[in-house]
């Protein structure tokens, strides 16, 4: 199992192959489409993160000593971002997630989607992923 930083470096390498923004976004959209569907039962009011323009749903479970995340969004580019965040953070221990520094977003040129704080719920989602780690850590 790759570490959080190894996965981030993988993503940076993958995105490094693209020449222009359109290729990057096509890849991101593709990731969004391929995101494993979230169980509808998890799409509860409690799990929703309301952005000003689109919603994100986030659910977390403890599998052994690892946290597994499930998420979805109405917007496909946000879903692509979610797919990468899950790939990086899911299946790690609460301590690893709490300490994670998500440098890949900036390096692949997608910081803009986290700068749009209110529009898409992504910033709140990252925060919420960390909150889950803190909560599971406290329970352990």
């Amino acid at each position: 199992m790759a570490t959080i930083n190894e996965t981030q470096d993988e993503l940076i390498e993958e995105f490094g192959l693209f020449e222009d923004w359109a290729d990057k976004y096509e890849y991101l959209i593709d990731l969004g489409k391929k995101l494993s569907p979230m169980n509808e039962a998890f799409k509860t009011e409690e799990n929703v993160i309301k952005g000003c323009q689109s919603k994100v749903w986030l659910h977390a479970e403890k599998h052994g000593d690892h946290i597994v995340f499930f998420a979805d969004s109405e917007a496909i580019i946000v879903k692509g971002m979610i797919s990468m965040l899950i790939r990086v953070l899911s299946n790690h221990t609460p301590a690893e997630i709490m300490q994670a520094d998500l440098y890949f977003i900036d390096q692949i040129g997608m910081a803009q989607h986290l700068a749009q704080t209110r529009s898409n719920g992504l910033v709140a989602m990252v925060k919420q992923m960390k909150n889950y780690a803190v909560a599971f850590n406290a329970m352990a």
Partner: protein
Amino acid sequence: MADKFDIEQVRKDFPILDQQVNGAPLVYFDNAATTQKPQMVIDALNHYYTRDNANIHRGLHTLAERATTGYELTRKKLKDFLNAESTDQIIFTSGTTAGINLVAQTYGRANFSKGDVILVSNLEHHSNIVPWQMIAEEKGAEVQVIPVDEAGVLDVKAYVELLDTNRVKFVAVNHVSNAIGTINPISYIIEQAHRVGAKVLIDGAQSVAHFEIDVQALDIDFLAFSAHKLFGPTGVGVLYGKRTLLEAMPPYQGGGEMIKEVSFAGTTYNELPYKFEAGTPNIADVYAFGFALDYLKSLPKNAVWEQEKALLDYATEQLMQIDGLRIVGQAPEKIAVVSFVIDGVHPQDIGVLLDKFGVAIRTGHHCAQPLMARYELVGTCRASFAFYNTKSEIDLFVKALKRTITMLS
């Protein structure tokens, strides 16, 4: 006044338009959110801070005199712009929202009581809904809604029925819908409201940039709008009111400028318009705003409307040819705004990708969630045009939109 509309020259007057965004020429189609500023306005701001800056109305020195004159000159220009009876009825605020809140908190507080009805339309921006809900709650009054049909046209029959079957004290409607562009028949709306003794506030945020408003001819009680949507600076708004109404209204905020005499035994208030302008106002931006009005006046008569109408027709025709695209809001009377949705695609994704092509549009609920709910939509994509936009920009936009749709499907 120029006699011919010279689009090349006009575009040069708005320096911001000439730039690359994300490696492509900027196409600015978010004019309903805010308009760009002509060089004259930018220069005026610079001039003000370089030469004239001082606090107004109180100082005796030369700079104070210049600043005061500049500030009051804009009031005079607005009186002419709106054909108001006097400059006393032009109150400077910080924007449309502030003007509406002022009326709700002063006129509303003094005049609404339990069981009164305030009518708003289903087309309103949140800033013409929430202030009325707030005062209604406080006063035990009720906010009711004038419905809108599928095309986005206000149901005037239902409106008249609401007037005839309720104790309607106040009607608050926009002149033009920011989300879908519908032009409302405000002359009729006002006439009918007055028939039952109700007062009317017109939210002019989206209309002032597109056509002339004569407050006297329309018999408007209150009109609120923002300078930044009228090619002027941000942070300035205008509230026009009928003199008798404004005089009877209690002041809004207390402080300097709005008083005549202050003592601990009691304070007397200043006259109109200062009664409603507590504290040091936004002098520089008010001053510069006057130059936006001058700029508009310098354009040939009807040119703005004709150019925008041509853009609206062309954009509508081009967009209708795109598979799966549906235009939301097809009122026969519309300003140059096209709101649309595309089957199976979230508006936010369109907005993000269009930006990469250098095209700025607005996506989302446009601060009109009740209207989105009416159409059962999470939001729309909205392209809104100004007279400085061109058909070739629409071509760039449509081309980018087609690419965007392909990328997303």
